[in-house]
């Protein structure tokens, strides 16, 4: 069990997708495909839960009983090397949870069901693979494998501009990941002299080898070039300003469940990649780049928030809030170079916790926007001036829904408050830690960054007021409140948001030992 659980986590969804093909043809039970998908992801969630119960944060990856290292391609020294540590376990849990929830949220997909759910499961496998891989080649393969299902999921089941959104997402991400590919091959060849003439993709081994690279290329330090290529790859995924323009489009056009996955899991891959690969392998460059990273983080916070304020489409607003929230992660990550040990620890812990918490909060936001959209088929906070129906142009899209949909409104209130970082909800703790860390290293920048909290409050509260408060819009007197299935998608996430808001210890315990070893690597390079 211990040896096979990680492989099971990755390949269970693939198995589910394969089983679907014959089943859809020969077994004529309604919704059988959806139940298979639900069962697969449910089982995956249980396995992830079991993994969490048996996870010992004090062990390093190499000591962990779950790690598997098998030779795959001998002459190129590629290994099937997967393992789990404090950095990856929150992401694995998040992926398993959101995949399960998203299958539930996709229950009313009625177009090309087989295609949708099998692609979704492949996507799930790819995500798991990224978070579990410890071999760079394997990591890259899983990273790219996700693109194809995502392209189809946006392009076939998305909104009106889906074709453009799909190809834009694909091209952007591919552009970044191909630079990552160059960096990967570069790391392999430039470390050969330090490893007895054998190249390696083993990320654990590379932690020792990569910092020894001292070659020059075109007058630049090779380490610096490697860092930049890796950074382009990850920055597009995060997305870091100015690479963020694919995000609002893709998030808005994607179906609800896919938006949840995009915002909840895929964005985290960018920061996870930075922490898993760039940070330990190139600590010298991290130190040199930290200030820039912090500036980019602050730009992300402010730029995302300002854009969100300007949005009149609820989903687009949520999408831009993601850009803003990922900025906190970057600021916290940059704080690793802080002169005070406590500051560095706060920043890094905050960053990893924010990755998890933003995943849950934004998932909730997208799910809830989707619930409203399913009933009303629009999500305008305010109708745009050039709306087809000139009577509606410039008027409020909704209004007073709180009296019509009390439970739903309460859920949205919780999600919005979590999004703007209200104390006692999980977002507050991680954002505060990011700022504490950031302040210990970059005083002025962090002060400017805190403006983001204010801006976040503006758009969330204003949107809430416009949609839910005030007199009930007559057009929506027949709206029904959130139903049980939809509630079932939101409640587990809301529970985690509340839990980690008042009792973040389980989360901190999971990540802290991996974080502190990462910090000591970076601090050693200052």
């Amino acid at each position, binding site marked *: 069990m211990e040896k096979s659980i990680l492989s099971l986590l990755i390949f269970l969804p693939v198995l589910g997708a394969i089983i679907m093909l014959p089943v859809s043809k020969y077994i004529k039970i309604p919704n059988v495909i959806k139940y298979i998908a639900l069962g697969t992801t449910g089982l995956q969630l249980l396995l992830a839960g079991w993994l969490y119960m048996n996870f010992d944060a004090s062990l390093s990856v190499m000591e962990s009983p779950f790690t598997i290292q098998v030779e795959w391609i001998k002459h190129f020294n590629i290994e099937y090397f997967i393992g789990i540590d404090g950095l990856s376990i929150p992401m694995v849990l998040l992926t398993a949870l959101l995949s399960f929830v998203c299958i539930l949220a996709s229950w009313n997909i009625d177009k090309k069901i087989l295609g949708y759910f099998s692609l979704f499961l492949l996507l799930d496998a790819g995500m798991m693979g990224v978070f579990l891989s410890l071999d760079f080649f394997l990591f890259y393969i899983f990273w790219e494998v996700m693109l194809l299902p995502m392209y189809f999921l946006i392009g076939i089941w998305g909104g009106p501009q889906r074709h453009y959104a799909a190809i834009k997402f694909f091209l952007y991400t591919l*552009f970044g990941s191909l630079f990552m*590919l*160059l960096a990967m*091959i*570069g790391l392999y060849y430039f470390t050969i002299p330090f490893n007895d003439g054998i190249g390696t993709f083993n990320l654990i081994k590379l932690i020792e080898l990569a910092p020894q690279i001292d070659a020059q290329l075109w007058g630049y330090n090779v380490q610096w070039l490697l860092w930049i290529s890796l950074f382009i790859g990850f920055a597009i995924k995060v997305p870091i300003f100015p690479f963020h323009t694919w995000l609002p489009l893709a998030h808005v056009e994607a179906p609800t469940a896919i938006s949840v996955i995009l915002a909840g899991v895929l964005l985290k891959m960018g920061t996870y990649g930075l922490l898993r690969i760039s940070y330990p392998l190139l600590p010298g460059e991290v130190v040199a780049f930290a200030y820039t990273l912090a500036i980019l983080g602050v730009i992300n916070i402010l730029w995302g928030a300002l854009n969100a304020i300007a949005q009149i489409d609820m989903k687009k607003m949520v999408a831009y809030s993601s850009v803003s929230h990922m900025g906190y992660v970057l600021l916290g990550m940059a704080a690793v170079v802080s002169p005070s040990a406590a500051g560095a620890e706060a920043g890094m812990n905050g960053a990893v916790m924010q990755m998890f918490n933003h995943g849950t909060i934004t998932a909730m936001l997208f799910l809830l926007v989707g619930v409203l959209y399913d009933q009303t088929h629009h999500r305008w906070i305010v109708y745009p001036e050039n709306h087809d129906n000139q009577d509606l142009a410039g008027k409020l899209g909704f209004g007073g829904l709180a009296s019509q949909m009390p439970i739903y409104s309460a859920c949205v209130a919780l999600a919005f408050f979590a999004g703007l970082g209200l104390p006692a909800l999980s977002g507050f703790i991680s954002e505060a830690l990011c700022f504490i860390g950031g302040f210990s290293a970059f005083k002025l920048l962090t002060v400017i960054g805190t403006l983001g909290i204010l801006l976040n409050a503006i758009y969330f509260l204003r949107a809430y007021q416009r949609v839910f408060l005030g007199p009930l819009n007559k057009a929506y007197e027949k709206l029904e409140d959130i139903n049980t299935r939809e509630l079932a998608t939101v409640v587990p996430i809301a529970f985690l948001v509340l839990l980690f808001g008042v009792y973040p210890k389980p989360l901190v315990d999971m990540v802290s030992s991996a974080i502190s070893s990462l910090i000591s690597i970076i601090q050693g390079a200052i």
Partner: protein
Amino acid sequence: MNNLSSISYFLPEFLIIITSLFVIVFDLVSLKKSNDILIGLGLACIAFLLYQLPKNGGEIFHGMLINDSFSYYFKWLILISTTSIIIVSKYSKELDLEYKTEFNALILFVLLGMFLMTNSIDLLMIYLSIELVSIPSYILAGILKNDKKSNEASLKYVIFGSFASGLMLFGLSWLYGISGSTNIYDIYQSIAMIDNPYMIYMSLMLILIGFGYKISMAPLHYWTPDVYEGSPTIVTAFFSVAPKVAGFAILIRTFFIVFTGSNSLVVDAIPLDGINWTLIIAVLSAVTMSIGNLLALKQDNVKRMLAYSTISHVGFMLMAFSTASIDGIIGIMFYLTLYMFMNLSAFFIVIHVENNFNAENIDQWGGMGYKSPVLAIFMLLSLVSLAGLPPTSGFVGKVYLFRTLFATEQFYWLGIIAILNSVISLYYYFKIVKSMYFDESDIKEEENTPLPLYLIIILFSSQNILFYMYWSPLYNYITSLFR
């Protein structure tokens, strides 16, 4: 080795000649129906003879040809692709039944020429073998005699081809003039003593024109789109793979032996003193892949688009060639193998679609993903593979091309250009994918796929996954040829 004892190393080629002649004779004596059996038998025997051929036979026919493991491998690639073309041609509706015999005979002539291209080591043989491939190819391009486009393709091909081979002949005569020999190993001996690099540059560039035209390297690619569009699709499929394979074989062998200081294909080569041809190849590689990709973006015709994509793939392979290393050659051979399968499977599906839905343009592919789901998935695999993305073997091939730059520590800038090109190429390959899956179509037409065509498509497409999951055996086999 003298002529008589050489023959035992020449049996596959010998059998090709006999088979092609018999094909024509059978046609004349009204045995048309037995032609299929004859060709099948012939190809099977050729394959068997090739299999039992010693891998390192050495020079034959007084140093005209050489049998080594390098040519052995290329011959297999050529034989496999040609055989599949002959089988699929049976099911192409485009080819008029009347010309089937001519088609088969011509293909066999080209096959002979390509075999000779892989093992020529004499300037005369190099020229003759290229012409033996070119001249039947001109006819093949124009085999639809009542089709205007096909005629145009043939004419353009003839004019361009004779121009290029004329220049190449001039280059070869320079080479003979400065060295006094036609055997490339002898040329290598004397060329190292010549201290005037311009004379060598002159012949090198002219020869490169001849080879470059064969593999459609920029700026000699102009014929490719027109010829590919005008020729019947089955001929286009043939042109896009087999002559490219043979062209790379002759390019690699000639350049490695004549213009480097190594005299052999088994060790890493260093360009001759003062002759920096690797840089020329690197620049041409960048130009080739960029031109191929940028022009492919605008195409609506599937065949024309695949023609440009072929050009860009040639650019990618030239990238590995520009490193002048064994790693590079292995990378090219590895990539050519994968490229052969993925490109042919894409073309065969195009043929199937043309047969059934009469679709030539990309927008006519609308909804193919729902009309014929199985083939559409194979097409998707092939296109993803051509674009070089996981989970397909095209990705693996591309990694091996990239890695030669790092392994030999040169031309890193070329890697960045190649990466930008990969991103561009995704866009146009996915125009087809978009059309297949995102556009709805309510045209329901009876679909009729002959079983052999189906099997070949499945066989060739499944390698996209197989060699992605585990490519060690193939790579190790190619590496073992160089020991």
